[in-house]
Structure formats: C-alpha cells, structure tokens
C-alpha cells in the first residue's frame, strides 16, 4: 500500500474556513492526519459500505461492485449483478446499504438508475452476498414516474433504527416543481420496508393522492444521507448556491423549488422566497455551492476532535466540510482535505474509526485517512 503522508495542522484548516456567513469563526481544534491510497483506477465510484465481517464493498457507476478484503481491492468484480444497468449521465448513482441483519441474511441493497435516456428513474435491488458473488437478486422498488433526463437523481440510502430503508430521489432537474407533487416520487425522501413496500406508519400512508412511500418532500437532489440517534439528515445539491444540510422530520416539506437560497444556473431566480410557512428551513445552507456528494456523521475514536461532527464530502469545492452543530443549534465549520484538490464523491467511517474516501470520476482513488501519529 502506497502511503502518502500529509501532515495537516490546525492552522492550515483554519485558513480555509467558512463558506457560510453568520457562522461562528471555527470548530474545535482539528486533527493531524495522513492519507493512504488503497486503490487507484476506479471507474466513477459512488459508494463505500463496510460489512460486519471486516470486508468493504465499493460501487462503480457502470454497475459494478468491488470487494476490499484486508485493505486490498479485489481485482475481480462481484459476480451475479444484473447486466446492462442503465448508466446515469452524471456518474451514478449506485449506493450500497447493508441489511441490519446482514450476519443472518447476507442481504445488500443497491440503488441504481434504470430505464433509458428517454425514461429513467431509480431502482433498488436486493441481493444476497455469498463470498465474492451475489445471489437471489430481486428488484424491491422502482421510483416513478419515469423521467426523460438523466440528472438530479438522488439515490442515497440509509437504514433507520427500525430497519426501514430511506431512499433519496431527485427532482429530475427540468421537472423541479414535481418535488412539491405528493403523488409521485420525484424530489422526495422515501421510506421503505426491507421488502420494498411502504411501511404502515409512513407519514402519508392512506392519504388519497399521496404516494405512500413518501417520508419527506420538497428536495432537489440529495446525495448524502446519515442517521444520527434515529434521525435522518441529508445533504442536497442546490442549483447555483443553496446547497443544504437538512434534518428530516417525517412528513415535512423542505420547500424546493418554492424556497431556496440559490438561483438557477442562468442566475435567474428560482423562487422569490427563502422561507415560507409550512416549509422546513435547512440547518445549513451553502452558497456558493460546494456540491455535497455524501454525508457522514463521525463517531469513531481515531479522530476524537471530530466525534459527533458531520463530515461532508464535496465535489465542486474539492474538500470535506466538517460541520459541528452545538446543543444550542449554532453551527461551526472547518474545511478539511482541500490540499488533495480532488472532487470527493463519498466518505465513510471504517469500523476502526479511520475514514475511507472515494474521489470522483474516471481513474478515481480509494483513500484511507488515519491519524498522522498512531
């Protein structure tokens, strides 16, 4: 394993602080770290997931799964996945969720785009991982309606403590108003059973004209999700500005496109409003857009200074934003890993508390981040 040592001290990170106004100056002191390269040459990777047996899965957008065993990326891909997965124009999505009862059932869940350029959306499949292959592949859920653009897909998944599965679905870009249409899945966070159905206690279950899978609505393109003390948080892309960190409340409306701190890519106003009655405000809004590609809530022991913080991998900003939310709701931030100067797609916490990072695009890297001094 090639090791690149990057000693980063507090002063460096402090100098890169703060994309958001009205934020306190900084978080608690940062930590020194070094970055190790686990693998290179990945093709548009999208997600990392750790298995209880110590292995890890890495997904690549063309529809491949790779196993990492003992810190080594396996040369062959996981066999048994369906052929001919539709490849989203914008690299992915292909998220991985591990069944809370994996030790018993071996189930892994994959989200991926399905359909064609003219008609596509997100599908969730479930498969049993046996050794280095998957069996019993089954389609659990397909988001509707089929859209004609391969953009703003969402596609992140996370299990809640009650073993229901959350899935983010994007607004399809040119159909942004559909994020407010409760009859379909566009621009929503969905909550599913482990069989892909709507749980009986979903917030809109039984309400006429509302898709029963909806957990929250009014989202643009959430590509980060994390569950903290039973509460889901998402990081979502805004347009030009207005990227958001949101704390999800079942049944709540997060306002897109009626409220936003961003403007369109053309600098046209998307909405005159940044807040409206009945719309949940973001915990944090970033302008200009750093483009969050994922969301991690760090609980490990290797970096005590970061415990309890959100670590948000950023694509456009090419850094990880550390976000600390104090008990009084105040937010402080710190930019990390900017010296890598790479678009960051995903960031996960390994069982030992190290951070695993995926860079974005073709010829991407899988990196491991550990304290500079053991």
């Amino acid at each position, binding site marked *: 394993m090639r090791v690149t040592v990057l000693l980063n001290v507090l002063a460096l990170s402090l100098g890169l602080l703060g994309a958001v106004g009205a934020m306190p100056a900084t978080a608690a002191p940062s930590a020194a770290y070094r970055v190790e390269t686990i693998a290179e040459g990945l093709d548009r990777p999208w997600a990392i997931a750790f298995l209880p047996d110590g292995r890890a899965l890495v997904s690549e957008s063309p529809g491949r799964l790779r196993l990492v065993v003992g810190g080594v990326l396996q040369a062959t891909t996981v066999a048994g996945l369906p052929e001919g997965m539709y490849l989203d124009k*914008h690299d992915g999505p292909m998220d991985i969720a591990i069944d809370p009862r994996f030790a018993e059932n071996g189930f892994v869940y994959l989200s991926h785009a399905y359909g064609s350029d003219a008609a596509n959306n997100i599908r969730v499949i479930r498969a049993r991982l046996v050794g280095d292959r998957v069996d019993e592949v089954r389609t659990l859920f397909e988001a509707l309606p089929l859209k*004609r*653009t391969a*953009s703003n897909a969402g596609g992140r998944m996370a299990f809640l403590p009650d073993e229901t599965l959350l899935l983010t679905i994007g607004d399809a*870009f*040119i159909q942004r*108003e559909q994020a*407010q249409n409760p009859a379909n899945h566009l621009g929503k966070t969905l909550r599913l059973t482990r069989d892909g159905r709507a749980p009986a206690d979903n917030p809109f279950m039984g309400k006429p004209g509302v898709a029963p899978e909806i957990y929250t609505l009014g989202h643009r393109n959430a590509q980060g999700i994390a569950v903290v003390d039973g509460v889901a948080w998402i990081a979502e892309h805004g347009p030009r500005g207005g990227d958001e960190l949101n704390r999800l409340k079942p049944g709540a409306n997060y306002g897109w*496109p*009626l409220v936003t701190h961003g*403007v*369109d*890519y*053309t*600098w*046209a*106003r*998307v*909405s*005159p*409003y940044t807040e*409206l009655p009945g719309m949940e405000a973001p915990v944090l809004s970033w302008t200009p857009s750093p483009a969050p590609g994922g969301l991690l809530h760090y609980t490990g022991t290797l970096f005590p200074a970061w415990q309890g913080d959100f670590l948000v991998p950023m694509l456009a900003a090419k850094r990880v934003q550390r976000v600390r939310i104090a008990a009084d709701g105040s937010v402080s931030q710190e930019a990390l890993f900017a010296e890598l100067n790479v678009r960051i797609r995903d960031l996960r916490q390994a069982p030992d508390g190290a951070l695993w990072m995926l860079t974005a695009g073709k010829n991407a890297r899988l990196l491991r981040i550990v304290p500079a001094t053991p």
Partner: protein
Amino acid sequence: MPLKSALRPPVISAFLLATVVATVLSTLVQTQFNLAEITALGVDVPVAVRLRTTGQDLLGFTRTIGPIALCLLLLALPVATWFARRHGYRLLLCFLAGGVGFYAAVGIIDAFAPMPTLIAATRGAAGKLSMALAMGIGAAVFALAAPRTGRVS
C-alpha cells in the same frame, strides 16, 4: 449587408438597441413564466414581490440571456437583411430570424450544456415560444431602427 455598411454607427446603434430589447423582453418572459410555476403551486406572489423578482432577474439573468441574444442576432440579422435586400419584407424577415434563431440557439445550448435545459422558461412549449417572440421583437427593432441600405423594401 456589405461589411462597410454594417459597421456604420447607425447600424451598430440599431443592433445594440435590438440586443437590449431582446434581452430585456426575454428576461421579462423568463421571470413571469417562472413565477407562474410558483403561483401554480399555490404560493401567492404579490405585485411587489413580482416586481422585485423581475428586477433581480434584470440584474442576474441578463448575464446569461444577453450574450445569447447578442450572438443570436449577430448571426441572424445579417442573414435576414441579406434576404430582405433582394426580396423585401425586412421587418418580417428580421422578426422571423430572431424567433427561429432562438429555437436553434436553445437546441444547440441544451445539446452541449451539462444540464438538460439551461433556461427554465424553455422547459415548456409556451415559454420557449414566448422567448422566441421576445427575440423576434428585438430583431424587428433592428429592422425599424437601422437605415435601409438596399433598394428593395
């Protein structure tokens, strides 16, 4: 139109006026179509908010549509005036050149832009037609303001 004629100050002034008119009108269209989508979702947009948003777009969206209008008219108007010098109907030809040119411009832009549709108002047929009309009016302003250089009218 010969290059020497095209570079005369009155022609340049007419072209700039046409560009400004096309830019402002298409911005007004963009704003009103966008606000129509907001009101269609049940949110009230009072007149003051509408005016403020329109002003914001005149300061913001014009950064995008202005260069588009300029390039579009720079290509479309010489073609229209060339035909008009031979066949007449300058006003009509300029108007059509602006409108048709906008459809072509949107098609080219959307084919190469990373997003499916760059200009929100052009997501629907009515919005696209309205913006094409705005560009057509801007082009027609050129026909009215620029001195005639040909013998056919």
